[in-house]
């Protein structure tokens, strides 16, 4: 696995990385095992189809409502949080978000950060940035910790170390944690991780976390986890900084109720996770623990581009459950690292073009069979295949064409040669005469069908037209028109 990226690699190398992953038997086994496991667990949670579908309807309506009112809700959230004593920061870009976090640390003379799981912090590459400024960031989610020790990035948004097996972790721990003998006993490995991180929680000056939902009505950050590291990160250090994509706000506290049910059941097939951690303020007078300062960084980083387009806006309904990747035949074959982006799998393919531009992420929308397994399981009903097709159109569009809601990197996959192919194709198929001629040629000249057909014959025998087309056969039969 170490041949996979340590740092962000632009998705231009997507094909190459995919090929590498396909050749890695161990990796494919890891993903297959994990996906079968997660699929079965999700299925068990949703045995009542009617309940599932009605809950998905509700979840989708709640997210749509939140997006329809996004600017108002963000302002309300800010008001409520501020009244509760939580400081709100706005970041248009990854660089701004990083600078805000650094500034908070510097003002508190902080040097050590303990991190709960946060994909937004991965997205802005916070660890790297803070590291460059002399700060020490330690991941505390077991999966993230493993990935950090390995010098890698998460390969899944819910289970970051899904690509690693016990033996990999055993080796890593033996190598990186003093006095740790090699063992593949998972309980022992977890206890080793726990011991190694305990001290870090105590010493940390700042705790950083993501946010699953922010409630505008009450000014509450709702965090979901199993391990307790999220609670420790947001409770023990004197300062807590939360980062969230600005779309994660919902209007009402009770709107979270169906969403958490959908989230935990879709993500890991759990009816509930061990902890729901609802943070509404820093330590109040008279309280004995909890951070003295709590900050929330609201991150745009390209989300407003998706927001601007009525169809693409639905991308932002996502609640980051990861079910789409757990069910994706492509993700299951190539794993998360091949995508080269923070968010892999189907959600990554529809989100990354906004975060990175089609010039960097333009390959991703094409790397799908459009089978629809993702949208079938998506708890908030994001029509992922439709969005992929739309993004394909935007990537192919003439870069100079003016459109109502232009996307960054429009036309990055525009190819004059391919345009010609499709023009020829549409010319042939839109004209009955041309199609008849083509049929005639293909069936009569079938003996000359090439044995090598671009891409196809790498894994298949060549396609050969039949001696007579259906048109011919039915004409002979005297079929009425």
């Amino acid at each position: 696995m170490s041949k996979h990226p340590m740092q962000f690699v632009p998705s231009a190398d997507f094909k190459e990385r995919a090929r590498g992953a396909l050749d890695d038997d161990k990796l494919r086994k890891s993903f297959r095992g994990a996906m079968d496991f997660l699929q079965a667990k999700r299925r068990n949670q949703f045995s009542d189809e009617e309940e599932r579908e009605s809950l998905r309807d509700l979840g989708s309506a709640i997210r749509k409502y939140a997006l329809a009112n996004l600017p108002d809700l963000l302002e309300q959230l800010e008001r409520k949080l501020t009244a509760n004593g939580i400081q709100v920061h706005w970041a248009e870009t990854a660089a701004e978000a990083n600078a805000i976090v650094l500034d908070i640390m510097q003002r508190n003379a902080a040097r050590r950060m303990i991190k709960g799981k946060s994909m937004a912090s991965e997205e802005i590459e916070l660890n790297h940035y803070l590291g460059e400024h002399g700060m020490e960031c330690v991941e505390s989610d077991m999966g993230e910790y493993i990935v950090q020790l390995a010098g890698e990035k998460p390969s899944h948004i819910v289970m970051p170390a899904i690509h690693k097996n016990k033996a990999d972790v055993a080796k890593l721990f033996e190598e990186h944690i003093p006095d740790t003998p090699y063992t593949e006993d998972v309980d022992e490995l977890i206890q080793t991780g726990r011991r190694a991180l305990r001290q870090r929680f105590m010493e940390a000056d700042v705790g950083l976390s993501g946010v699953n939902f922010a409630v505008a009505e009450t000014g509450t950050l709702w965090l979901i986890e199993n391990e307790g590291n999220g609670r420790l990160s947001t409770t023990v250090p004197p300062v807590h900084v939360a980062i969230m994509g600005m779309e994660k706000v919902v209007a009402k506290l009770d709107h979270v109720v169906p969403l958490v049910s959908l989230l935990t059941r879709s993500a890991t097939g759990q009816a509930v996770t061990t902890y729901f951690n609802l943070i509404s303020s820093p330590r109040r007078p008279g309280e004995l623990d909890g951070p003295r300062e709590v900050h929330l960084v609201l991150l745009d980083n390209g989300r407003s581009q998706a927001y601007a387009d009525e169809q693409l806006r639905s991308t932002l309904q996502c609640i980051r459950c990861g079910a789409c990747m757990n069910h994706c035949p492509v993700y299951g074959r190539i794993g998360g690292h091949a995508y080269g982006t923070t968010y892999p799998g189907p959600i990554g393919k529809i989100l990354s073009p906004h975060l990175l531009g089609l010039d960097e992420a333009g390959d991703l929308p094409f790397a799908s069979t459009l089978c629809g397994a993702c949208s079938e399981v998506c708890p908030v009903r994001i029509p992922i295949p439709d969005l992929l097709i739309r993004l394909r159109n935007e990537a192919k569009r003439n870069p100079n064409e003016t459109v109502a809601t232009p996307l960054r990197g429009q036309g990055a996959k525009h190819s004059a040669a391919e345009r010609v192919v499709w023009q020829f194709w549409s010319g042939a198929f839109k004209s009955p005469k041309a199609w008849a001629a083509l049929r005639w040629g293909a069936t009569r000249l079938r003996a000359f069908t090439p044995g090598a057909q671009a891409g196809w014959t790498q894994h298949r025998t060549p396609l050969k037209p039949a001696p007579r087309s259906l048109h011919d056969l039915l004409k002979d039969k005297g079929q009425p028109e």
Partner: protein
Amino acid sequence: MQTRTYPPKPSNVYLFGTCLIDLFVPQAGMDAVRLMEREGVSVHFPQDQSCCGQPAYTSGDAEAARKVARAQMDLFKQDWPIVVPSGSCGGMMHEHWPKLFAGDPVYGPKAVALAVRVFELAEFIVNVLRPDYSRARAEPCKVALHTSCSARREMGTRGHGLSLLASLPGVEVVEHVRESECCGFGGTFSLRHPDISGAIVRDKVDSIAGTGCQRFITADCGCMLNISTAAQHRGVGVAGTHMASFVCERLAGESA
């Protein structure tokens, strides 16, 4: 996918043959005609038809797709059902034509009106024609079923395929591992990402072969060609038969 209501059995239908069947598996089209005629329906085949436009649509060239789709839309003048012996093409016409022409003052309403008349073959046979296959050949036969993903999700073809096969005496459908998983075809995906596509179809071939059935039945020519040629490439004895052809085969010798 919405649950749809079905019309009573009509006297006339249109067949939309699809370009893949037209060129590569015309017998499937002929068998589809035969199955509908067996029920006393007169089948019309407008000779000017070609393709539903799906290849360009899914490749991100909506303009090219519209050109081709538009050329089909005026061919079905009578208010008869349009039967498509390929689920994903049926899905294109039923689900995506309305989206493709949304906002088009002429073709938009046309696409919507056409969409409700489009049926996948097995769906049409099971829900509208309701044939009696009880006198078909009865000797036991085990097959696997593969449904195209988009068709299953847009048209519910898995259910229709299973019901149709269940109405045939002696036919047992053996479920394969991860039956609902994609075969890796994905239209131009198979050409654009041959490695990934190849890995997916390899697993599909293995899982069908794992049932011990040498044959799988499908109502989708793209998937069928993909899986069959991939099996052949590796010398694995698995081959696909189109649903229409399989049903005809089971009806062969039936006293008329």
